[in-house]
């Protein structure tokens, strides 16, 4: 098992709506790629700051005639959450994504469909350039830290 990528990063609300792509080289065909990904915090617990953000969003997105009732019930939208998702591309194209909410995730991509994690596309792990993308859909907290590690399994002849 070889660590192919080990990285971490710090995000702020300015990072929202950006993609961060890491690129690594696979020298030999692998049996599997394992990905560990986590980020924190998930929820924004600052109620006063959240109130302001929720009011702003209601103002922007609700039909004007319904804005007031939404504002009265703003706590229905609390707590706001950060959302980061992962996707993977191999030398031969897209290999799937994990668009889901848990902030700690482990994924495997391999030849066996039954052992490949949901969201990802099973098949050969060809040598060449691989990319893994963190899509930063939303960071609401003043700071959000993530850790990402990719490991390659047994090399096949």
């Amino acid at each position, binding site marked *: 098992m070889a660590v192919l990528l080990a990285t971490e990063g710090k995000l702020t609300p300015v990072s929202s709506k950006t993609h961060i792509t890491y690129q690594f080289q696979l020298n030999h065909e692998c049996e599997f790629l394992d990905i560990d990904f986590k980020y924190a915090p998930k929820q924004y617990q600052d109620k006063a700051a959240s109130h302001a953000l929720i009011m702003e969003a209601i103002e922007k997105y609700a039909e004007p005639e319904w804005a007031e009732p939404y504002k009265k019930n703003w706590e229905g939208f609390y707590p706001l959450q950060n959302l980061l998702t992962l996707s993977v591309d191999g030398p031969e194209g897209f290999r*799937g994504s994990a*668009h889901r909410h848990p902030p700690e995730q482990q994924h495997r991509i391999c030849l066996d469909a039954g052992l490949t994690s949901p*969201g990802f*596309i099973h098949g050969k792990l060809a040598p060449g350039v691989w990319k893994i*993308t963190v899509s930063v859909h939303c960071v609401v907290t003043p700071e959000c830290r993530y850790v990402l590690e990719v490991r390659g399994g047994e090399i096949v002849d």
Partner: protein
Amino acid sequence: MTEWIPFELHTHTPHSDGRHTLLEMCQTAARLGLQGIALTDHNTVSGLIDAEAVSQETGIAIIPGMEWTTFYGHMLTLGAPYCEWRDLGQGDIAKGIARVHEQGGIVGIAHPYSMGSPICTGCHWEYTIEDWEQVDYMEVWHETMPPIKNHNVPALRQWTDLLNQGYRISATSGRDWHHSGDRDALAAYTYVGLEDTESPASSQAVVKAIRQGRLCLSMGPVLEVSLRVGGKSYRLGDEVPLQEVNSNEPAQLSVNITRSSVPERPWGADEGCMLIITSNLGELSRVSAAGRTQWIEGLSLEGLRWFRVELFGPIHGLLATIAFTNPIYVEI
């Protein structure tokens, strides 16, 4: 002969953030009276790996799709493989739509008036569409009990405005189905009109019918609409040619209201129900539908660009739109 097949066109599984497997969802779909679904996981198509086996086991047709879950809007695609979205910015949606079309698929704007970020990331449509001809459909009914959901009101209004401007965009319903529960509120069906020679399992046939607008959105009953003029019959999504409009021959509109056989969806041509013809000229007609499962009326085509049929009446004690069709268009 057209068969009206109840579909659910917006669904998720654990391949994205759904909580029911494709098998569990399709088993529930069968119990709900559906005959087909579109699998539209967020930003992946990997869930289709189980489609053939699940379809065989449950009898539910599964149409391949995806929900582009981008930073500036969610866009449903049907009948196309994965198409790249991550390299596109807020000004690039035309390029993205073209990618789906080049792969033989169609695109639909999902829940355009949902709350956006940070309440629901990217859920509100914030792309500027420069050419609405590119958009194949809009999800104007979203979630369960769509006739009474606030955010569907502006979606329906926008769709109607676009029809008035001469665009031919289909309208669909989508539950945005993430999990199956025993006490869930009802979602609407999107009835897809297929030829009796076409299989609901044919992605091409379903995609063609959606693009064409052979669709009726309904909490239960199907509204079969045809317009007879000049010895020919026109169906939902068809265009009546100009020569027929100019011939001054009377057009005859026929509507059949057929109740769903699913007991939880008892609604039909009942007391308190109205049949409404809506068009670019506004409301053309509003009559009681009580006891009239078959309804025939003359219709003047003068000035018409499109019209659709709606059934309005009580659902669970609330007055609401029970069903409405996509339009029949008139050449101008």
